């Protein structure tokens, strides 16, 4: 027997804490995934046992978190360069890349399998496709290659309400697609506002975000165009008769407010006011999406209770 002694650094596992592994799941992103999936699940016609519905939401949350862990595994090299992400578990050395990969793959598999067992295989298949889309299509393919990365890649974050819907109905519908469209169109201006603030960071890492490729002014115009489209799409559930006039009024007011914030970005191009306008757009657009889906949920429940009717 050798007398050589080894420390934990020689072992194949790191000294990562449980908290470090939870950080890999991107809990803040997960909260949006959980909430929008819940709205899709509640808005869907039909019945799902409350216990199975809770398990379905849990599976969607874990699946979303797993894709976050796989994203951090693949992007560890650029995360280490960017100030915003340098403290993430892998670049900071707390978690080994192999651990994150294994963790992400295991949680992906178990979340898809459990969702299929608890609800149906359409919902499970869509969850698997969402993880694939985020990790392979967005992270591995688009993110480092094109300024349209967030436009196409945004679809990954938009699928959860469709998964929630499919968990109840076993299929898709135009109504669930409208919820998908709201998040899909909302995503680019939200992240472009961040990209304006973190342009140097993205530039250092070689990620071709829109401001780095076409410049700040063109990005500001694109933010305005996409925000107008977001405001219109936000009203679509009522205009198509799925929700009430009350929802339409709230969605229209919130949409106009978001457009005002994007006009502020266009107007303030220099110094502190420009930075403030960018951060306001980034933060408030998150609030807009949460608020819109909350109103959509409450409106749907009120319609189901017979308190209000659809717009048409």
């Amino acid at each position, binding site marked *: *027997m*050798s007398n*050589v*002694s*080894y*420390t*934990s650094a*020689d*072992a194949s*596992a790191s*000294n*990562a*804490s*449980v908290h470090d*592994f939870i950080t890999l799941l991107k809990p803040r992103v997960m909260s949006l995934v959980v909430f929008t999936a819940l709205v899709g699940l509640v808005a869907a016609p039909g019945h799902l*046992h409350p*216990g*199975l519905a809770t*398990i379905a939401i849990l599976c969607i949350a874990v699946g979303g978190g797993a894709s976050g862990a796989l994203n951090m595994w693949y992007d560890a090299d650029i995360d280490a360069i960017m100030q915003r992400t340098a403290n993430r578990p892998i670049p900071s050395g707390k978690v080994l890349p192999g651990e994150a990969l294994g963790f992400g793959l295991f949680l992906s598999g*178990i979340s898809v399998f*459990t969702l299929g*067992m*608890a609800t149906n295989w359409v919902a499970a298949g869509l969850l698997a496709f969402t993880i694939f889309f985020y990790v392979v299509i967005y992270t591995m393919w688009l993110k480092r290659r094109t300024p349209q990365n967030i436009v196409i890649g945004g679809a990954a974050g938009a699928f959860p309400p469709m998964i929630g819907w499919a968990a109840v109905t076993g299929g898709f519908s135009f109504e669930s697609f409208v919820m998908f469209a709201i998040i899909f169109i909302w995503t680019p201006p939200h992240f472009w506002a961040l990209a304006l603030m973190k342009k140097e960071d993205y530039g250092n890492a070689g990620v071709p975000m829109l401001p780095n490729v076409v410049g700040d002014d063109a990005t500001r115009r694109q933010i305005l165009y996409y925000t107008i489209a977001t405001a219109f799409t936000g009203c679509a559930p009522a205009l198509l008769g799925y929700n009430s006039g009350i929802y339409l009024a709230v969605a229209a007011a919130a949409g106009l407010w978001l457009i005002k914030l994007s006009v502020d970005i266009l107007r303030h191009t220099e110094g502190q006011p420009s930075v403030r306008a960018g951060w306001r757009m980034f933060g408030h657009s998150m609030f807009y999406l949460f608020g819109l889906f909350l109103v959509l949920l409450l409106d749907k429940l009120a319609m189901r209770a017979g308190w209000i009717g659809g717009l048409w």
Partner: protein
Amino acid sequence: MVSAEVPVTAIKPEPDALTPNAKNRLRSRNIAVGCGLVFLIVLFYLITIFKMGGHVVSRAV
């Protein structure tokens, strides 16, 4: 570099070589993995019960 003559068991870290902090982290990770496995067992049991619904009691004994 570990030579080929060194037994495979030697590449395992000696528990004493770990710092108290590392030991604590390892212990909490092991507990978390254990809890996760128990949680999965309970989860699959619940799925079975929820899927069977009230029919679980209406069978010939």
